[in-house]
């Protein structure tokens, strides 16, 4: 029983990790005022590029860097369109998502990719032997430990650094921020770049970390789960990560339940994260407040 629980929990953590990387990025982007729906494109592009990179260099870890770069490029394009040219963010996000889906599907057919190249797992000596907790927390591929360092860093960046302060001001009240001498659109572009970097890493981890290969549309809407997680978490980092865990666990259950002999509609479990996000929005709408200018483009001199 303990073994089964530990397997399911470990799988939940594994499935949470790609979400959590991307969610850290999405959290930053949303705090700066952009609802970045191209996070799906960033993850998918990251996943593909990571496998491509791993195939070319033979190193899965280098593949992760390829993935990050891909995410960064998508973030750059998105940032230029929505926070320089002033094109509607949602439209840009949707177009990018459709574009990357098509592009990766096309490239998948034209390029021969490795199918079994994964980054190394690191078992932390001794504590990984602790029953239940050991395998759940301390027996993972190495980027998982990077995530554990990343989360406090993101918190510090947003809550304590000058960059984060200006970022939040840009997301809450861009007019005031502007009067104070902050370049609102630049901050928002920068936030999108960070989001691209982290989401690309999340996608890359999914591909070269967990699966070891690339399938068509392999992120399958995880980007939208990430957006849901940020909403679920009420635009706090803690809540966002908790949201990722909930959604990761739901995903793990979906995979584990049939093996345990429980008959439950798999489709329902796929839908569960979104249902949870809706419920969360319903009940938390009063207490949680989105950044004041979330999703509102900033034009100098208005209001």
């Amino acid at each position, binding site marked *: 029983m303990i073994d089964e629980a530990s397997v399911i929990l470990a799988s939940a953590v594994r499935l949470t990790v790609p979400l959590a990387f991307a969610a850290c990025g999405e959290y930053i982007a949303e705090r700066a005022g952009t609802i970045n729906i191209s996070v799906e494109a960033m993850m998918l592009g990251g996943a593909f590029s990571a496998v491509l990179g791993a195939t070319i260099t033979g190193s899965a870890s280098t593949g992760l860097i390829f993935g990050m770069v891909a995410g960064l490029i998508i973030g750059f394009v998105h940032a230029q369109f929505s926070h320089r040219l002033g094109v509607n963010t949602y439209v840009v996000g949707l177009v990018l998502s459709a574009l990357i889906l098509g592009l990766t599907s096309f490239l998948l057919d034209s390029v021969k990719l490795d199918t079994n190249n994964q980054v190394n797992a690191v078992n932390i000596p001794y504590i990984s032997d602790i029953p239940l907790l050991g395998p759940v927390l301390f027996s993972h591929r190495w980027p998982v430990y990077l995530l554990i360092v990343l989360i406090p860093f993101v918190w510090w960046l947003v809550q304590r650094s000058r960059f984060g*302060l200006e970022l939040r001001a840009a997301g809450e*009240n861009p007019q005031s921020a502007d009067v104070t001498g902050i370049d609102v659109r630049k901050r928002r572009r920068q936030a999108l770049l960070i989001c691209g970097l982290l989401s690309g890493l999340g996608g890359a981890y999914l591909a070269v970390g967990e699966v070891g290969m690339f399938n068509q549309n392999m992120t399958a809407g995880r980007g939208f789960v990430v957006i849901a997680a940020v909403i679920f978490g009420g635009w706090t980092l803690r809540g966002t990560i908790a949201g990722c865990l909930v959604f990761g666990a739901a995903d793990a259950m979906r995979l584990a339940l049939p093996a345990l002999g429980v008959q439950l509609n798999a489709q329902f479990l796929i839908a569960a994260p979104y249902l949870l996000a809706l419920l969360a929005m319903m009940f938390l709408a009063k207490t949680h407040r989105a950044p004041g200018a979330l999703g509102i483009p900033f034009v100098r001199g208005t209001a």
Partner: protein
Amino acid sequence: MVGISKHFGPVCACGDVDLSVAAGEIHGLLGENGAGKSTLMKVLLGLVTPDSGQILLRGKPETISDPLTAAARGIAMVHQHFSLVGRLTVWENIALGDRGRVDREHIRTVVREVGERYGLAVDPDARVEDLSTGERQRVEIVKCLRRDPDVLVLDEPTSVLTLEESRDLFTVLRRVVADEGKAVILISHKLDEIIHATDKVTIMRQGRVVGRRITAETDERALAREMVGRELSKWTAATAVGVMDALIEPGQTEPASGPQLEVAEEPTTADEPSAQEVSTPEGSVAADPSGATPSAAAPTVTEATTGVLLRIKDAHAISPEKIPLLRGLTLELRAGEILGIAGVEGNGQSAVGDLFSSLLPLTSGTVEVDGKTIAAGRPGAMHAAGIGVIPEDRHASGCVLDMSVAENLVLADLGGISKRGLLSRSRLNERARALIEEFEIATPSPDTPMRLLSGGNQQKVVLARELSARPRVLVAAQPTRGLDIGAIEYMTLRLHEAAKSGIAVLLLSTELSEILTLSQRIAVIHRGTIVGEMDRADVDVERLGMMMGGQTA
């Protein structure tokens, strides 16, 4: 500041303005909305680049191109609408304009120090959104003062404050000036605060400086006259030329025997003819408050009209942010009259406009049309009750710019041109053509997008639409704002005709000249309530100015 000029398109916001402020004084900058006060200060702050002119600091010419340069030169401004971010804490807001690492402890200490030095106590860890407006302003001032500026500019600082808070503010300002030799520029249209708080005052009107006074040597009356004088002379000029005569005399007042104002029965008003207005020396005999004196014209107005058509009783309303918009506003409007609501912008005019557009629910009080109470705030209720509205901002809420002229013309009355839920294209066009002809709308065709029309023609479309719905009450908010002379004249004429045809017209305007030209009765709105009313013939511009400035003289 020497010879500052700034034009926005054809509009001259500042023309050759000189302003000099000495260290150790509080300098008032007085003027109506649009007099150019804020523009002048924006030039000083580097938010607006002037067309010409120079800024001299301690005798040295300086180029101030952006707010950061201004800050570096020791000029700081407390904005009318605060530049604070509500979700952040006080210390975070104060840290916002800095550079380098965020040092929380340091900033908290600074906040406390500055607070103590000037008596501006604020808790650095409080969230700004939890603070009262008075406290927020304190934060804003601390934000400015911590950089030790030499010149502190406050733009309408008391417009959001209670009386008590205003008093505290002026105590602080006095300390800033007296103890540290800083210069404070106080932008205001409130006469009492200019009188009480400033050492010197510069009066602006229509982008020009029209007077410089030592505050101690002048009084509210003289200032009021200088602040609004232009409106009077412009109006009288128009009357003298005869442009407006025909409009003003629809048999409501006594036969024209010259400019209206001078016909007022109050004998003392005879010694303030309009031409003298501009140059009246401050010491001259001020007119008596003539409100108590009944005018011969007043009964005529009443006779010409029937009973009360629109009645607002003790209306109170608050904004979604819980800021009071209306505070016990009471108003009566009779059929066939034009009632002008004068007031400085932001005193509840928009709320009145929203009320009649069914956008604003009342927290208490009633709106009655013909004795029947209307459910305020229920969509369409006001329209159904026969109230037509010409909204303040025709682009935002007056018309749909991307729809055609014809479509815009029939928007308010789709029932008349549709059959079984479907629009009848031919009826629509017929209707539109008739209205285009009747209202002399210059458009290439009924199908032309609204966007392509001139402002005047757009406004005509709005007017045509509202009048074609045969309203009993017409509310016109700033109906001539931004229009050219021809269009203004047309609107004026039409509103008069509307009134003559028995429609009760409520005119909301911050342009005193517009009010004076159009209205038969004038009410003054201040802080969400009507502070005074007078007939057009009894108008004493000075008294009007004082009422608009919050003086119930």
